[in-house]
């Protein structure tokens, strides 16, 4: 209580809440909103859990659908592929955005708005439109560049076992989130002073990057990574249209024959995603309290 209202009420003496007749009724209105929306958000989750654990034959509770997941046909392949894609996307996105954010912050401040707008583009551009563009570019290989090294490179990108093309598309999709997470970290820290100090003390740029900048941005980098992983593990549109089997497309494929298993996997993947995102908010809170104290 004190931490949050502390700033706003610092100057005032916080009198008894002014008594207005309308306020009482507003309380009831608030209560209704919270209860109705609370039910709306909780029921589907609860129902999915019930759906997966109830035993149709005998009644009662069973965990067989969860136990069947690891052995399910295609699961191991699809899931490891998705994890691999997530890891590669994180590495590439960070390798791209950390230097960009730094450059913008330290050297090219006037480009900030432009970069911000550019990174917001994927947020409003429908992924399905993006993937249509990607598909037509990929179609150039057989159409125009057949028997050239470029075509070979294009085909290599589409290797079904590890489709690199997905990594590139996912980097684009993750840009807004990665940029925002990193930008928040950069704004919170006085990077120009820190880097100047390091440079004056004779550190090389790589040294500055790895021993000064990255430790300062640690939380932001973690944030960015978690969001990216969550995004890649749940992404369906691009993978489905380009015809690769990843974790989400696998769920859809089996849903016809094994409905309960598919819901069980959905519940599990939800839990994993939530863990990641809750971890982020926990990290955020820790950083917040550290800075305010």
């Amino acid at each position, binding site marked *: 209580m004190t931490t949050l209202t502390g700033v706003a009420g610092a100057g005032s003496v916080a009198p008894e809440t002014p008594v207005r007749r309308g306020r009482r009724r507003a309380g009831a209105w608030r209560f209704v909103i919270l209860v109705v929306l609370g039910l709306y958000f909780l029921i589907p989750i609860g129902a999915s859990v019930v759906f997966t654990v109830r035993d149709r034959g005998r009644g009662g509770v069973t965990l067989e659908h969860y136990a069947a997941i690891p052995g399910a046909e295609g699961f191991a392949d699809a899931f490891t592929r998705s994890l691999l894609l997530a890891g590669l996307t994180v590495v590439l996105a960070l390798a791209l955005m950390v230097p960009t954010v730094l450059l913008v912050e330290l050297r090219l401040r006037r480009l900030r708005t432009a970069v911000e707008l550019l990174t917001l583009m994927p947020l409003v551009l429908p992924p399905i439109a993006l993937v249509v563009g990607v598909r037509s570019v990929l179609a150039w290989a057989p159409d125009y560049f057949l028997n050239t090294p470029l075509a070979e490179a294009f085909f290599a990108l589409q290797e079904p076992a590890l489709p690199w093309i997905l990594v590139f598309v996912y980097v684009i999709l993750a840009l807004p989130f990665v940029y925002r997470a990193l930008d928040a970290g950069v704004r919170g820290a006085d990077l120009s002073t820190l880097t100047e100090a390091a440079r004056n003390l004779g550190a090389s740029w790589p040294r500055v990057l790895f021993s000064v900048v990255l430790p300062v941005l640690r939380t932001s980098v973690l944030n960015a990574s978690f969001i990216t992983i969550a995004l890649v593990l749940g992404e*369906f549109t691009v993978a489905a249209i380009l015809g690769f089997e990843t974790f989400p497309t696998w769920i859809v494929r089996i849903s016809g024959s094994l409905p309960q298993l598919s819901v069980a996997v959905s519940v599990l993947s939800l839990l994993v995603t939530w863990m990641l995102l809750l971890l982020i908010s926990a990290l955020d809170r820790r950083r917040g309290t550290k800075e305010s104290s």
Partner: protein
Amino acid sequence: MLAVEAFRATDPATFEETWSTDSIVAITGGAYRRAYLGSLQLSVITAVIGGVLGLALAIAILQTRRNLLLRRLVLTASGVLANFGGIPLAFAFLATIGTQGVVTVLLQDTLGLGLGEFRLASMTGLALVYLYFLIPLMVLTITPALEALRPQWREAADNLGASGWQYWRYVGGPVLAPPVIGATMLLFASAFAAYATARALVGSSVPLVTLQIANALSSNVVVGSENLGKALALGMVALIGLVMAFYAWVQRRTQRWLQ
């Protein structure tokens, strides 16, 4: 950064091939026209409902001064749920109110009437599912703006004898209008672009642009359907561009008023 730019710049170039063909004409009529209208209808309705409910929820949790735990809980949950689009969401709803869903069966067993005419694979069903990630998105995007609304303004208005309505009409409303409109636009774009949820829920029984694009791309039967898909995608981008331009215009106007 350069790699990304080069990658993205290729998109319009590839669309360009289809400019001169009949595809552009083809997508303005028949099933495709219906798909655009269906997508627009669904996105506008869900964006407005999601915007209103999300705003109400955000106001509700920000005004609860006593209950900080609730507030933190709702905000964290919003962060989680806003990212909960796509396949898992669709299956969660199928398990709840699909034909074999837990709630459906429960209603049938206890009341004997099920969900009546309601079908998950319909516009209403889709809207219900979309709201599940749109409302939290609204809460997330609008909360910072609401927090910027100083309590002192409300107190000043109260002291000057303004009624609650007058406060919202002359103080809160104008200040909040640009962020609220912006957030609603974001919801619109998000609902408009959604594909995974719709694909898993309805197959292709509801006319939606994203579903039509996927159909056009995957069909090997119709000659030139690939170009149709491109034209449809271009149409989507153009629509989103229009919405963004409108948003920028509104933003400029409201800023002028505020000065």
